[in-house]
């Protein structure tokens, strides 16, 4: 669009002594909309939005499409694939392992998120206290966060090895559990082995966000409660928890999403085994797609996962309503 010469920029009118008769109806030029008007907001949001639509939404939509088609590794690039309706959904949901995988996913997510939250909260409260080295130690905790999942999976697989793993050795030395636990090959423990590693991985993020939330609670609230005779437990219940509501909501939602994305640990530790005892939706989806080349089945599980996460995201958006804008 071209800005015509007559539509002089508003700044220039200032020089003119005569009031411009058109001035009152004059609109911002296109250029100025982006500098000063709502156009700026639109532009900034669109930058992200368009990118995410192209590189985020399009793949998801393609996944949905594939879940309705008959497609495998070899017909990926071929767009004239037969539609099969919901046959893939029926197929996936009637597989013998489907119920088990759904249950494991639930356990894995619930346990991971709950433990990360509780341990992260405890650590945040502990390091909130004023003692020498608290800051540095809190920083060191974060070090674990920067480790790639693949490496963490490798380390934990090595530490939890049944025959010569250091965890079994420590349990034996401390007489906590004198016999060896075959963490990853016993179906009773395999899911928990991965969960332990995942909790370890997620603690720093939880601790960090909760520390921030705690720091934002005004000290005088605690002092007032103390004067009112509230003990530490009561203060936590009546001040800390309500004041942390927004943080907790955001944190739980993000944790659920991160946990649902956890793939490296399964790949590195149990491969979902033995006999699917540690298999979860995201890994199962990958197995179908890349181990049995059944892209349609894998896509179907992915779509089902999205449906679940929509619920979680709703929760997060709700929680942000409790925030105040400074």
């Amino acid at each position, binding site marked *: 669009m071209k800005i015509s010469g007559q539509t002089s920029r508003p700044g220039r009118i200032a020089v003119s002594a005569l009031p411009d008769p058109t001035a009152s109806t004059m609109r911002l030029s296109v250029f100025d909309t982006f500098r000063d008007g709502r156009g700026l907001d639109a532009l900034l949001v669109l930058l992200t939005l368009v990118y995410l639509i192209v590189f985020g939404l399009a793949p998801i939509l393609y996944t949905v499409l594939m879940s309705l088609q008959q497609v495998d590794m070899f017909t990926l690039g071929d767009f004239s694939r037969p539609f099969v309706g919901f046959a893939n959904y029926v197929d996936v949901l009637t597989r013998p392992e489907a119920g088990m995988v759904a249950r494991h996913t639930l356990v894995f997510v619930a346990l991971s998120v709950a433990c990360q939250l509780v341990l992260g909260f405890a650590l945040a409260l502990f390091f909130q206290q004023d003692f020498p080295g608290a800051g540095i130690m809190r920083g060191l905790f974060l070090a674990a966060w920067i480790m790639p999942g693949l490496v963490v999976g490798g380390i934990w697989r090595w530490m939890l090895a049944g025959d010569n793993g250091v965890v079994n050795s420590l349990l034996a030395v401390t007489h906590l559990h004198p016999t060896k636990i075959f963490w990853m090959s*016993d179906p009773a423990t395999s899911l928990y082995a991965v969960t332990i590693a995942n909790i370890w991985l997620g603690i720093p993020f939880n601790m960090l966000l909760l520390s921030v939330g705690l720091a934002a609670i005004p000290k005088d609230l605690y002092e007032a409660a103390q004067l009112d005779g509230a003990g530490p437990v009561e203060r936590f219940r009546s001040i800390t928890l309500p004041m942390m509501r927004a943080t907790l909501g955001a944190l739980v939602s993000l944790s659920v999403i991160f946990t649902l994305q956890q793939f490296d640990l399964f790949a590195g530790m149990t491969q979902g085994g033995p006999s699917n005892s540690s298999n979860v939706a995201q890994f199962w989806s990958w197995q179908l797609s890349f181990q049995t080349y059944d892209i349609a089945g894998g896509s179907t599980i992915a779509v089902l996962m999205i449906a679940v996460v929509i619920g979680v995201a709703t929760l997060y958006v709700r929680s942000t309503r409790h925030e105040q804008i400074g």
Partner: protein
Amino acid sequence: MMKTTALAAVALLGVCGSSLRAEPLTLDFWSVDQDGQYAYGMAKAYEAAHPDIKVNVRRVQFPDMVNDLARAAMTGNVPDISYVDNPDVALLASRGALSDLTGMIAADKTIDMESFYPGPRGAASVNGKVYAVPRGANTLALFYNADMFKAHGLDPDHPPQTWDEFYAAAKTLTDPAKNVYGLAFSAANSEEGTFQFLPWVQMAGGNYDHINTPGAVEALQFWQKLIDEKVASPDTLVRGQYDSTGTFNAGNAAMVVSGPWELPRMSRDAKFDWRVALLPVKTAGGPRASALGEGTNVIPTKAKHPKEAFAMISFMNARMPTVWNDFGFLPASKVDVPDPKWPAAYKVFATALEDAKVRGPSPDWVKISKPIQTAVQAALTHQTDAKTALDTAQAQIDRVLKK
């Protein structure tokens, strides 16, 4: 002498064929090998013989090979030659990803499909057409620690012959105090698990398409017993063959079911008298069986230089007699291996190979193999009994095979 001449002729042919080109030609060669193994060794030899050709070897992770080839077929960015594991040939060929080599092999004097053992030959062809040239073979046998046999009063010259003897020996050799298991093998949730399990099924009267026969159930129950009584580590379910053999090499297992590819590492790491025997049979005189491993060389459909690629495959095939000594696997064809390394082991593996059966072939092999792995793991962890587990697997396999 004949072979050397043939080799020279092939070399000459290659030189003539490619000297017409002005610029040096690069052949892309995908393989699961690591530095120093087959593909790299062959590439070096081929480049030495053909200075005008450069062979660019790219390493692909074993479980990723089919995915990568399928993706490459989509993008058109395929290699000229690729390694393909035996059971995957049928899948890739059925989807049109592999060039039909029947004509080229017929025109070529050096490759005779009839010279291959039935197993490798079966893996390389689909519906009478040849899509791959076997690059070698391997199979399973029983490695045992002779020093431990002696220490426990067993005769190292008479390794166990039947399942009962095998179990008894393993039981005797197990020594939890010293952290030693009688046996190591792999029941992993991967193709390796199927690879190790099928021979036991075949010995007892069953196969991948008849996985719930009474014999197969017995085979699985036998495995159950090994794990239940801690004769083998529960981690057998998560360990691949490489890791299992590692525990044998480290002295933490007295026996291991594994293949010839372990020989170079074992001779370096195992600081004891290790020996190799055929897998024990179910009952004395019963049928023998072993797994057929290793893979083939193929030319993807959209390869840019199929002619030159075939020349190199032909060159590699001609070097079949050297694969045992150089790369630790058996020749896939009936050739003489002059002066084999580890001669005793060679003899055992060569014998085992005669009874080795190919997995499949079926274009849906992965969908057959997966239920078997799951059934094995479910039974070994007592989530279900052996019979039910195999029945479930059979039902899934039937569905695939009927399609």
